[in-house]
């Protein structure tokens, strides 16, 4: 089952990459842009009995390794959900 994990800097954590890109977009004329964040996108295949099982496994993976909850937020999508 495919799981797609999105990791982004937490609100309030300085994100110099997001800021630089936002600045660049604005200088290209995209004045409507704000709050740009640069994160990570992790795609993984999980052997799971059900979508709920895959979700539980993904949650543990995020908490233990894929994200650092101190500085990052995460969300994920499970295939077929």
């Amino acid at each position, binding site marked *: 089952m495919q799981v797609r994990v999105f990791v982004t800097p937490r609100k309030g954590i300085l994100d110099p990459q997001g800021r630089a890109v936002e600045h660049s977009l604005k200088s290209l004329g995209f004045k409507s842009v704000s709050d740009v964040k640069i994160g990570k996108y992790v795609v993984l295949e999980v052997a799971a009995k059900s979508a709920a099982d895959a979700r539980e496994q993904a949650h543990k993976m995020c908490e233990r390794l894929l994200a650092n909850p*101190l500085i990052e937020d995460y969300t994920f999508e499970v295939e077929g959900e």
Partner: protein
Amino acid sequence: MKWGVVRFPGSLDDNDALWALADVMGQEASMLWHKEASLRGAQCVLLPGGFSYGDYLRCGAIARFSPIMESVAKFAADGGLVIGTCNGFQVLCEAHLLPGALTRNRTLSFICERVNVRVENASTPFTRATHQGEVLRLPIKHGEGLYVAPETELRQMEERGQVILRYVDADGRESDAANPNGSMHAIAGVANDRFNVFGLMPHPEHAVEAMLGGTDGLKIFRSIVESAG
């Protein structure tokens, strides 16, 4: 005194740390491979700088699950002395042996220069050979050294004296310009609340011989040797 220097795949400063400890200071120091479980009787474990596991995912995130880190965590829980420089600091934060995290420098650039750091707490095992407020000149070389922690935790750390080193100018004054990477509270080095684990972004192992630009790094290592007494 017996030292153990941990070598992860991608460690860079392991040999320099060994040189500083063994050749310059005459200490008994040996390399510990990350897959080993034994700390070989080390009285202080040093996690060196570098790019362990290529800094994949997050700096230190993968190294913290190396077999040796389980032993380092137990050693620290028993009160053993652990010091992490640069990437070693990042590994200690990821392993929750130190509070906070290290993120991308605010300039987005890799910084390689000499900085001034002020000793904010000279009564720890890592700073006892310095004096309170002393300014040390040490090199930094990192892309991700911006220290971050929740403001409530930072306040507690400041109160307990866990902020050990702070970036300052040559006169020992804090200023935004003297903070190379944008660290919160200009933090360059912190200890845990038991003061037996210490992490710092500067490299004391690169400041142990006058011909290489300074010897202030020796003060950190001498403090540890004195503490192990």
